[in-house]
């Protein structure tokens, strides 16, 4: 009986654990950690810098676009697609809890947007710097 009780309470804990699992797959911190892992192996890697990330975010690159062209100069504010005009939710995690919580989405948008803005892929250093900057932006 006692054994049965323990087994059923264990099952209950397991089910409850599933139920309270956060809606997001990962936290921005965990995403940053995996970018860090990627960056560690690259030559010339320096600690991520929010200041460098902010410059990168605001600078126009190869295609006359910057990150800010669509995500606005203030990443805690809503942006607007430079071409279609469609509204874009804020990019800073402080203003939009969904940001940087899905590794799949992060990979997809860095791939697309770096290609559009820089005409190439971003280095792990650049990605980590930008995320470091975005994490400092207050709502």
């Amino acid at each position: 009986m006692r054994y049965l009780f323990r087994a059923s309470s264990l099952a209950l804990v397991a089910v409850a654990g599933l139920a309270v699992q956060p809606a997001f797959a990962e936290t921005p911190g965990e995403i940053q950690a995996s970018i860090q892992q990627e960056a560690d192996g690259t030559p010339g890697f320096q600690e991520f810098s929010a200041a460098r990330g902010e410059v990168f975010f605001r600078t126009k690159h190869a295609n006359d676009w910057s990150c800010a062209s669509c995500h606005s100069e203030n990443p805690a504010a809503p942006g607007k697609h430079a071409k279609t005009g469609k509204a874009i939710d804020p990019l800073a995690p402080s203003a939009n809890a969904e940001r940087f919580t899905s590794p799949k989405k992060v990979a997809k948008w860095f791939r697309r947007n770096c290609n559009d803005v820089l005409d190439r892929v971003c280095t792990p250093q650049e990605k980590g710097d930008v995320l470091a900057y975005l994490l400092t932006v207050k709502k």
Partner: protein
Amino acid sequence: MSIKDQKFFRILAVALLAMSVTMPAAQADDDDHDEKYGSENRGKPLQPAQTNARFQQECSSCHIAYAPGLLPAKSWRKMMAGLDRHFGSDASLDAEDSREITAFLVKNASNRWSAPTAPLRITDSNWFKRKHDDHEINPAVWKNPKVKSPANCSACHPQAERGDFNEHDIRMPR
């Protein structure tokens, strides 16, 4: 025979004559819109009752999720094969998302319009040009920053996302 009856028969005769002349054409094309829009016919572009979550999410990130019925299947296949250069932007998807969305688009594509050239722009179709020419719309409307581009359907068609372009619902922004 009264004058009224004579008039009726005269109209009937003219109608029968007109039918005999137009019948062969009408049989070849069961819709008079075909002639009006060249060889194209847009059909009804309403969003299908059963939508697809990935289509909804992925295709509405940067613009409205254009209804599959707005383009023929050949066009959608071509579109999905070139997403890395999608009207000047990289809109690439992973293989699984791409496969599922392509299947949804092709299944619900316009089945009344098959253009051999597989156009990618909805605005390139004859019916679009005809419905939006200078005679129908003041050219100044296109210059309005709220309209921005002819691809921005919802600027004037509030139900565009549903694939509903009913003329009675049109609201031109000021």
